[in-house]
């Protein structure tokens, strides 16, 4: 293996590496939220679930020595919090957005409280697959260290898209999301379907959180998420409730986060605050270009409202 200075080639490589490394939490949380929102409910608490997932995954990995068990427990904790959200929202005249905000604060607070003693110790990390074996360049090698969870996320997106379109479950979920009355008339329990969708969304978000603490950046501390869960919720709208678009949006955000550091490392040193804001500028730009006053958001479940 050779150590070569890459110069400007480092920038696209860093973007590729960033897309692979940093996109997984966005991917899992946005896929989870996509499922939840398809059932006609918004769960804004995913930031809290993400942080809880990161904490519990790290703690379990440290206590048992098995990072995969940590991932599983993180998903389980996420699902439980999802159920909590769904049960409260199932009560009459409860606003899902308000519950989501409460759940976010609750999840973050609980994770900080329970996670205090896990900040210092080092837990076993998730392994990665070496997809850069063909390259003799150390940097390419490093950029192509791919975590299994990333691949799982990539496969999950088309699976969810297919499931929503082609299975009975998918049909029921979409029906509940588009018209609760129709679902009731067809004999389905709206609350039960939403509960399942929110729990599944919580499960995926919890796993996304465990990726943060168990792979990249790979340690538990209280600033770990810095708002990635909230960003991912926004990504779902950005991705028009389409799982495959969630993948592209997550990759885009992962890569965009690497722009600032990568450009500075090759000597483009001015305006780094602007480069660091690139993901958000990009979002605004795409939103502005694709929105139209003449039609509603395509793909938006019609039960999604803020006035419930």
């Amino acid at each position: 293996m050779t150590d070569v200075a890459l110069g400007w080639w480092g920038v696209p490589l860093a973007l590729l590496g960033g897309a692979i490394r940093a996109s997984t939490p966005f991917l899992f949380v946005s896929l989870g939220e996509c499922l939840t929102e398809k059932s006609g409910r918004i769960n804004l608490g995913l930031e809290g679930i993400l942080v809880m997932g990161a904490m519990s995954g790290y703690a379990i990995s440290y206590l048992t020595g098995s990072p995969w068990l940590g991932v599983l427990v993180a998903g389980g904790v996420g699902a439980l919090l999802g159920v909590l959200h769904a049960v409260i929202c199932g009560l009459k005249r409860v606003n899902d957005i308000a519950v989501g905000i409460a759940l976010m604060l609750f999840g973050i607070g609980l994770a900080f409280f329970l996670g205090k003693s896990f900040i210092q110790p080092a837990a076993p990390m998730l392994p990665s697959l070496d997809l850069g074996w063909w390259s003799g360049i150390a940097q390419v090698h490093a950029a192509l260290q791919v975590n299994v969870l990333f691949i799982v996320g990539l496969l999950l997106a088309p699976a969810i898209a297919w499931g929503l379109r082609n299975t009975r479950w998918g049909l029921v979920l979409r029906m509940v999301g588009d018209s609760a009355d129709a679902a009731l008339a067809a004999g389905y329990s709206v609350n039960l379907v939403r509960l399942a969708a929110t729990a599944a969304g919580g499960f995926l978000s919890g796993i996304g959180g465990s990726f943060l603490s168990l792979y990249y950046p790979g340690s538990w501390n209280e600033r770990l998420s810095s708002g990635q869960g909230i960003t991912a919720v926004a990504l779902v709208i950005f991705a028009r409730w389409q799982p495959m678009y969630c993948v592209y949006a997550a990759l885009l955000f992962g890569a965009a986060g690497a722009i600032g550091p990568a450009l500075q490392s090759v000597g483009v040193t001015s305006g780094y605050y602007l480069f660091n804001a690139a993901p958000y500028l990009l979002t605004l730009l795409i939103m502005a270009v694709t929105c139209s006053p003449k039609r509603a958001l395509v793909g938006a479940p019609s039960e999604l409202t803020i006035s419930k």
Partner: protein
Amino acid sequence: MAADRMITRRHLLKTTMLAGAGAALAGVAPLRSAAAATLSIGFIYVGPRDDFGYNQAHAVGAAAVKKMADVKVLEEENVPETIAVQKTMESMIQLDGASLLFPTSFGYYSPQVLKLAAQFPKVRFEHCGGLWSEKDPKNAASYFGYIDECCHLSGIVAGYATKSGKLGFVAAKPIPQVLRNINTFALGARLANPKATVQVIFTGDWSLPTKEAEATNSLVDQGIDVVTCHVDSPKVVIETAERRGAMVCGYHANQAPLAPKGFLTGAEWNWEELYPGFVRTVMAGGTIPNLVRGGLKEKIVKPSAYSSLVSAEARKHADDAKAKLTAGDYVIFKGPILDNKGNTVIGAGTSRGQTDIALEEMNYLVEGVIGATS
């Protein structure tokens, strides 16, 4: 009519408030005198206090104070550098009777500390960051350590250790203290290896784990083989560099356990020496100077122990510099020094010693540093 009623209501409110305040004072007064025997001291951290970094260093200092007799230590962590810190300080003063506060983050000072210092003239505000000036309230004070002395030693060690001659520095924000650490690190490295360069990446904030990891990866991708940093919690930078096989110099606290393969040395705070001293002064009725400064000599900072990667030559050079810095006869910023745009920032024949206040307004990066301050 309406105006009449408003005046009446306002009047009523005023009277009730006065009565209430009177009652409160009467009630509080005996408590106050009873509490006067113990000194309540508040420590406020911007992040978690066990972060392997800046906040942990302060918390270790607070723990040293806790061991003293007749003190009550209050701590609050994760307090943002916003109006939130005013609320925290106010509640520590009003509810817990704190009369000595340590708001430990740089961004707490202006306007937060200044505002509360004017409001509570009897409370002593000891801010970490070295920003106090003559026009500020007399009960506000600022202290700081010349940790750049230790960064300089790290730089010397890194200069000997690097094979590519390229060093990397992950920094949070281009403020004077950060720039000073980068510059002393670079000046140290270039003593050991005159061709060495230091590539800086600013992440934009004190704690952004994902961005810090990206920055470290980008540096290593560019062939940089020694990485150091100035962020609140160096854990992510150190661990990422270790995974990529780069060498590291620590910062804030001892990070040797985080990088068993690549750790060289590091720059650490020694607040557990300074804080008990401050508290003793206050309890004895003395006054702490409004601007306290110190480095290796005053034991406010200390270097981490060298790892086995540090060569004998590097040890000798760094130990020599350390001895001279401790004795006070070594000047890091000795002219002529150029910035990285080619301008002379310290002229030939000018020596800026550590206590020189001009160094605290540093707004440049020295020759050999790749990066920009804005």
